[in-house]
């Protein structure tokens, strides 16, 4: 499924796609019946109806409720009672029809209520039965299907056998006829073969001569080609030719913890690194406008400082790739999406034109030249048009870096000269290439540039040039 394309479709289209994919015939959007769904049914409460009907039953005894008349005493009470009795008599006469009707209705309602009660009970039983029946039907249908399939199979098996017997008979007849013809034709063939052998010997001689001539021609062509090659401009289009070699194990695998501790000790605090990396953001933001919605990949993400910086600048789909599980866990804890993979292998699995930016901080100096070439080629392939590649690596133009710091990290392969990096980028499909210095050295030996007097400058330089040519290490075991 092409999730990206589906995302811009209507819900009906999305669900039609899912239906087709999952082998449900693409019915119009008529909802599915609830065949697989268990259902729990609660019935209305009959007691409520009973409660409603109770006062109605009391109403049948009309005339039983007499007023109390506490306020009236003596003669007035006697007269009031008289009037009441008179009224009740008359009412009894006039309301007789109504009362008959009411009591008939009440009886009817009671009957209906009882019927409904039994209906609900029946319903429950019926549902049980239904379920049982359905189950049985299912089994019967399944059995029937099995039987039918078996029958079909048997029938076709029978047909096959009959056909085979017929075919065998036919073949036997043919074979008998053919064998006599064959004997004659074999002799004729022998004669022909002998003639052909003679011809072959002749042509072999001619072939050897032609081959010698051809070889001479090829040699001259090859020489010409070598000459052409030296004139051709080298364009880095395919890095895939070089198979991914074994990676130095010091950054991953059993060395993972070592390398993490190593970086913690020498690379600098995460805050320092973030501060340094923040320096790239003006250029990145100027190029993209906003980082929201941009697919960005950070190869060799390490402890995730670049991921932090990108996210704090508005990026929302950034992925980090690294081979060091210890450092990846740090990234995950910070909420970043990361993959444990070799960056070349990860890049190789990405589609053409699929990323907006690829960032690699302090990584290319860890690659062999073959890998470096492959990396640039893959970046050129995977990035979209106008996509950005940003790499940072130690600059060997700084004397201290070139002579000392570079060799501190045992997983460094060799310094990448700035001009080599620029050249590789240009030949790998990047039209605008800028190589610039970053992070100028601010301190040396704990002193800033301004702190060091002119006299000391020459002393320092002296120290660099006439520094000991070797160094030794002595350890005393604890």
């Amino acid at each position, binding site marked *: 499924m092409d*999730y*990206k394309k*589906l*995302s*811009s479709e209507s*819900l009906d289209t*999305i*669900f039609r796609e*899912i*239906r087709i*994919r*999952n082998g*449900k015939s693409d019915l119009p*959007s*008529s*909802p*599915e*019946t*609830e065949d*697989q*769904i*268990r*259902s*729990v*049914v*609660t*019935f*209305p409460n009959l007691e409520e109806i009973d409660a409603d009907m109770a006062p109605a039953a009391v109403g049948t005894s009309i005339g039983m409720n007499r007023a109390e008349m506490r306020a009236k005493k003596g003669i007035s009470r006697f007269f009031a009672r008289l009037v009441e009795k008179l009224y009740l008599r008359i009412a009894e006469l006039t309301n007789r029809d109504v009362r008959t009707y009411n009591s008939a209705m009440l009886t009817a309602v009671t009957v209906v209520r009882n019927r409904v009660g039994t209906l609900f009970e029946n319903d429950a039983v019926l549902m049980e039965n239904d379920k049982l029946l359905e189950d049985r039907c299912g089994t019967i249908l399944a059995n029937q299907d099995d039987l039918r399939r078996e029958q079909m199979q048997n029938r076709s098996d029978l047909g096959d056998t009959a056909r085979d017997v017929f075919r065998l008979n036919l073949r036997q007849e043919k074979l008998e006829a053919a064998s006599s013809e064959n004997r004659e034709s074999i002799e004729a063939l022998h004669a022909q073969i002998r003639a052909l052998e003679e011809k072959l010997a002749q042509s072999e001689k001619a072939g050897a001569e032609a081959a010698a001539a051809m070889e001479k021609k090829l040699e001259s062509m090859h020489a010409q080609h070598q000459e052409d090659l030296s004139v051709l401009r080298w364009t880095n289009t395919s890095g895939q030719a070089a198979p991914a070699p074994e990676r130095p194990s010091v950054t991953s695998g059993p060395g993972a913890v070592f390398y993490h501790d190593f970086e913690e000790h020498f690379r600098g605090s995460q805050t320092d690194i973030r501060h340094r990396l923040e320096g790239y953001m003006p250029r990145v933001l100027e190029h993209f406008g906003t980082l929201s919605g941009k*697919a960005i990949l950070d190869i060799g993400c390490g402890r995730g400082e670049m991921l932090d910086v990108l996210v704090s600048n508005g990026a929302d*789909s950034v*992925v*980090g*790739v690294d081979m060091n599980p210890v450092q990846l866990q740090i990234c*995950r804890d910070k*909420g*970043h*999406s*990361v*993959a444990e993979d070799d960056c070349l292998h990860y890049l190789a699995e*990405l*589609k053409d034109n*699929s990323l907006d930016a690829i960032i690699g901080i302090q990584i290319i100096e860890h690659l062999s030249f073959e890998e470096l070439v492959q990396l640039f080629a893959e970046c050129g392939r995977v990035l979209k048009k106008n996509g950005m590649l940003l790499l940072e690596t130690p600059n060997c133009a700084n004397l201290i870096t070139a002579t000392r710091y570079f060799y501190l990290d045992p997983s460094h392969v060799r310094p990448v000269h700035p001009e080599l990096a620029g050249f590789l980028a240009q030949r790998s499909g990047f039209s605008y290439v800028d190589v610039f210095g970053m992070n100028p050295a601010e301190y040396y030996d704990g002193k800033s540039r301004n702190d060091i007097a002119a006299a000391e400058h020459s002393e320092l330089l002296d120290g660099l040039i006439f520094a000991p040519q070797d160094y030794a290490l002595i350890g005393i075991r604890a």
Partner: protein
Amino acid sequence: MKLHSLDILANVQSSGTVGGAEIFHKKLAEAFSRYVDCVDLVEVPCCEDSFDTIMESYRRCYDLNVLKYDAVLSSKAPTFAVRHPNHVCYLMHTVRVFYDMFEELNAHPVNFERRQLLFRMDKELLSPPRTKAVYTIGEEVPERIRKYIGIESTALHPGMTDEGFYTAQAGDYIYLPGRLHRWKRVDLCIEAMGYVKTPVRLKIAGSGEQEQELRALSANLPRVEFLGRVSDEEMKCLYANALAVAFTPLREDYGYILHEAFKSEKPVLTCTDSGEPARFIRSGENGFLCGPDPREIAARFDEFYLHREKTAAMGRCGKKSIESITWDAVVETLLPVLEEKLPR
């Protein structure tokens, strides 16, 4: 208009596991059947093993025929994909691995595309006219779905899943129940026990994947005790006799432990980043709220121990603060919304 029939949609895991969600649905259906004549709890088998099975589960809900009911109440993803003109969602959670737990997935570009598709589907499915209104089980979920897909929703706390909590004489231990998982941060409380100055004890109930690690962590702390898995009765007894309850998870969605503690009249200590439980605590009134720092937690443990009267008062206050959270209150909020402008 009066509601006569209601369908409550629940998704059941095809694996058949019974957990909090299953009890939640049962209680919800029971509560509604006190108000509505015919309430059906329809269980849709769903599976979250892979993105394909998630999509198939969405489709199953989308193609469900529930038009015979007056209204439909859906709960967690993907049941809200159901199509009904009178549909309200009482959301437990969406598919979390594509939301706040996205970093748990392999960071392959295809997962970003899948997430984009899922967000696009969820957004439309949870908006009118497909869904009249969205309610959620706590305050964490509205924030999350607003952040990711821009859907507005209202928090509505569900009632308890279990009953029969009681209180008794407070002992000398802090009770810490729950699954022993990294996200529950039991280690914070164990580390805190290294800093306490009073002889307060910590009893940890439950088991889980982090158990060995936690036991190792508490090797030199004699006052930390692991009880393992306990029965429901034992659990209620442990609550009743506790001094206080500690519950310090990371970004919890609801957290029944806080409610159980309050029902047992015990104050709760939780962390500022614990999510929903932190929203219930008014520090000093019904418990303590502190940073995810063992020293700070230790100071509060000591405070529970030293000021027993105040601790008991906080527990009583806690019980009061969740009095209004009942299943009836849930129905009384949802029913008017379901009955509003019922198409006939």
